[in-house]
């Protein structure tokens, strides 16, 4: 019984780490392949985004509010 438990733990570790590495390795290849496909065939799709240096804020200001702010600023400038 006891040795079965240790054996189970060993199995989990072997199959587990094996699966994690196989899976993530495949993901590396799939991702790299997709990226080169995108860069080759859809390059001018739109300007690529440079990842910003900061961790992005989790709750960004919604665009409609930004627009409202912009509008308010614009209106304000006109009144001057």
């Amino acid at each position, binding site marked *: 019984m006891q040795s079965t438990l240790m054996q189970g733990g060993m199995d989990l570790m072997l199959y587990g780490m094996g699966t994690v590495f196989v899976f993530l390795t495949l993901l590396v290849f799939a991702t790299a392949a997709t990226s080169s496909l995108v*860069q080759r065939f859809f390059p001018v799709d739109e300007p690529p985004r440079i990842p910003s240096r900061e961790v992005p804020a989790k709750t960004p200001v919604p665009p409609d509010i930004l627009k409202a702010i912009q509008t308010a600023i614009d209106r304000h400038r006109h009144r001057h």
Partner: protein
Amino acid sequence: MNNFLGLWFDSGLAQITLGQLLMMAVGLVLLYLAIRRGFEPLLLVPIGFGTLLVNMPGAGFEAAPVFDSLGHLESPGGLLYYIYHAGIETGLFPLLIFMGVGAMTDFGPLLANPRTLFLGAAAQFGIFATVLGAAGLGASGILDFDIRDAAAIGIIGGADGPTAIFVTSKLSPDLLGAIAVAAYSYMALVPIIQPPIMRALTTPAERQIKMEQLRPVYKLEKVVFPLILLTLVALLLPSAAPLLGMFCFGNLMRECGVVERLSDTTQNALINSVTIFLGLGVGSKMSAEKFLNAETLGILTLGMIAFCIGTAAGVLMAKLLNRFSRHPINPLIGSAGVSAVPMAARVSNKLGLEANPHNFLLMHAMGPNVAGVIGSAVAAGVMISLVGG
């Protein structure tokens, strides 16, 4: 007079047990850690408060509803009963949290440097080494762990709260309280646990390695990534599909750019509501008989070891990759592979700046950081598939 005696016997003072008193102290400690020390407060405040609620004698937060023989409700259940059984036992709450986390995750840094996925893979070694440790403690008769308990304990090393809760609620629900507390506490302790290990395993020269600027990432790459990930899951590891499926769904909503409304709600009202209930529901498993025992001590110790091993494995894998690659990798970002997003990446950044004030590693470390989330979910899938049957 009977009424008065009734009120007294109903009162908490007359009923309280030592175990409940101790557990209320545990709840207060969790609240203290969350509020004053900043330990993952979004989860530990609800868990700590849930611990207080469920250990109030006679309050009935965990009471099951009672139905008469015709199926009519005679007495409703307690709030935590409903939360636990509707949202945690079914797995719904962790899955919705994962959808929200997906909607909050930017895979840009990972796509710019996919090799960092290997770091996320290596750091999962902490999980499986801990499984072995827990199995050893069980096999030697020191603690009462079976293989399902061992698997659930190991997942603490994934440094990913919802994954740990999802796996534990399936494999070993009685350990849910201890495992969730360990997972979130150690995630908060990452800035204390990781740096000594990272320093011990790296030379100053390695810590000063400057990495190449990340290449820009196309929007289309980001849109396609969750679909690729989902396809791999579908083909190779369906038992990881619930977690990773919802994660990919949230991420696709984020990146596709046409459902901002949905993505926004997923990242705010929805994940916040579910977080409150998830925390309270976990708290409902914090009863004295389930928490105040030697197994909890074992879980806390093993969880700590899991974090350390995962950290070390990530750093060592980064050093290994460096041997075979012409693009330099600073091994400090390896530790971010345990996930604990974004804390572990910030730790990498901090140690990088210590070594070289111009060496910004934050974005580089975000790659292994999110890779660690995927890695833990894959590990969770293996465990559910192998021992969850």
